[in-house]
């Protein structure tokens, strides 16, 4: 018993499932021009509102059917994934870097640094996020970079709050005191001792935030505030699908499923990663 070692758990099924879907969607998005069966922008009125492949009247090559302009739905979803992933990675990473850094400083140093940062977070969180996003995009102008910027500006507080609390509880641990006694500097302790212990949470939040960014982008393009070009996005496809729900349900249902699967996968993937990397949970 004295020498017993807790066995390491393997990768969990949910990590595989969530990771698998994300990888598939990501690869499809990256190689969209190669894997998309059709041109996502090509309209063909002869092919409008084709149903998905298992229904009567489906055409080969149009697996998930077409929209009311005869554009191939699968190809549009694949190309829409590009914008979804760009926004997810860029926005979530920016929010993560800003929020985690401030949270770490506030939680570890405490004192006035904590008071200032916590006050800013409180004020920030008083705004309803979606309204805040719409407002920001209205000010910044539509376009990919303003969407990314808006999400980062709004959501860094999620990281800040959680990481602050964790850094604070870590800072009270004896190993931090031992490091002080040994003569490490404050910043060194924060980065080398405390940061590794909050990293699993950072990773989990980062993945969750990517899912949130995908939704926010979808909402913004749904209300026509996102990318002002003709490029398909999941949100804009959903917006179009909503108008033709009675004639072509698939134009609404498939992008919704894609969106939900992706968002869920991001959050599950994050949780599973956290469990995998946390030395104590592992």
């Amino acid at each position, binding site marked *: *018993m004295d020498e017993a070692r807790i066995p390491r758990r393997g990768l969990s099924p949910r990590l595989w499932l969530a990771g698998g879907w994300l990888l598939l969607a990501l690869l499809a998005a990256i190689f969209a021009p190669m894997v998309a069966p059709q041109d996502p922008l090509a309209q063909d009125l002869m092919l409008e509102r084709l149903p998905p492949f298992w229904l009567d009247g489906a055409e080969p090559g149009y697996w998930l059917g077409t929209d009311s302009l005869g554009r191939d739905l699968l190809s549009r979803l694949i190309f829409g994934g590009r914008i979804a992933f760009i926004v997810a990675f860029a926005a979530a990473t920016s929010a993560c870097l800003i929020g985690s850094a401030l949270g770490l400083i506030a939680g570890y140093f405490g004192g006035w640094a904590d008071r200032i940062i916590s006050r800013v977070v409180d004020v920030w969180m008083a705004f309803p996020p979606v309204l805040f996003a719409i407002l920001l995009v209205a000010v910044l102008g539509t376009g990919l970079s303003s969407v990314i910027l808006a999400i980062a500006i709004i959501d860094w507080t999620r990281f800040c709050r959680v990481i602050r609390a964790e850094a604070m509880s870590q800072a009270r641990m004896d190993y931090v005191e*031992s490091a002080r006694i040994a003569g490490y500097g404050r910043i060194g302790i924060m980065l080398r*001792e405390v940061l590794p212990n909050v990293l699993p949470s950072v990773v989990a939040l980062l993945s969750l935030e990517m899912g949130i960014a995908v939704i926010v982008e979808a909402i913004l393009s749904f209300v026509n505030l996102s990318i002002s070009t003709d490029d398909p996005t999941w949100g804009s496809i959903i917006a179009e699908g909503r108008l033709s729900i009675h004639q072509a349900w698939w134009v609404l249902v498939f992008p919704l499923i894609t969106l939900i699967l992706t968002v869920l996968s991001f959050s599950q993937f994050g949780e599973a990663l956290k469990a995998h990397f*946390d030395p104590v949970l592992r």
Partner: protein
Amino acid sequence: MKPCLDIRRLSAVLPNGQRVLRSVSLSVQPGEVRALVGESGAGKTMIGKAVLGVLPKSVRIVEGEMLIEGDDLGRLDAKARRTLIGARTALIPQDPLTALNPSRRIGAQMTDRLVRILGWSGERADKRIRQLLDEVQIRDPERVLKSYPHELSGGMRQRVLIAAAFAAEPRLIVADEPTTALDVTVQKQILRLIAQLQRDHGTAILFVTHDLGVVAKISQKVSVLYAGKMVEEAETAQLFAAPQHPYTQALIAATPRYTDPYTSLKPVDESVLAGLKAEIAAADKDWRPGHG
């Protein structure tokens, strides 16, 4: 010879003005084990933390000096003080689980200090760590060095911390109830290890405990603390043979003996405590920082 640690009339207060240390004086000679006993809340940990420069922010030192090998900590600037404490002292903590970083491997944590603080080469630090692990009778250093703290038992973790404390050859080690968090069966082994390494390395130890049985086994000198006040100090044998202060006498009487564990177990006498409290209250009334 200069004492390894010399604490002179050290007083510390909480923000509400309450004193946690009351003009404590205490010295540890080189190579000596000095036990610091007292009940819970007496301020034993505070003294250790004061020496190591990690008092809680709410506790403020209002008078007194602390000298490590003759160097007055109060005269050094913060950076020099940190360096001196880091180079000459080490801590063997009470709870070996929280004293190790949960997300770093044992080996990295142990060598880090030698490399980063003392500027040793990685190779030299590694060799040194293995030597110390051998001294604390860890038979499979390979596995232990690669482990995370939670993968080891409490006894193993405490061995690791003992090895780490001695690795940098500090002059003074503060051991704060190093066996309290452990199984009774492991406590003895750990105590024996500390005593063994202390002898081999000739390190001075300030050994904090509330267990007079431990005091008898490990220390040459004892200081008895009550409510932040030094009640009595003596050679260990002397203290047990002829305790001078009524509180010490009561404390010894309250300690169970192995021969007769039940009949000799009685609480410290109320009248003794009442006398002590009155004494402290009277002293507090007249006390001003710097004139106490």
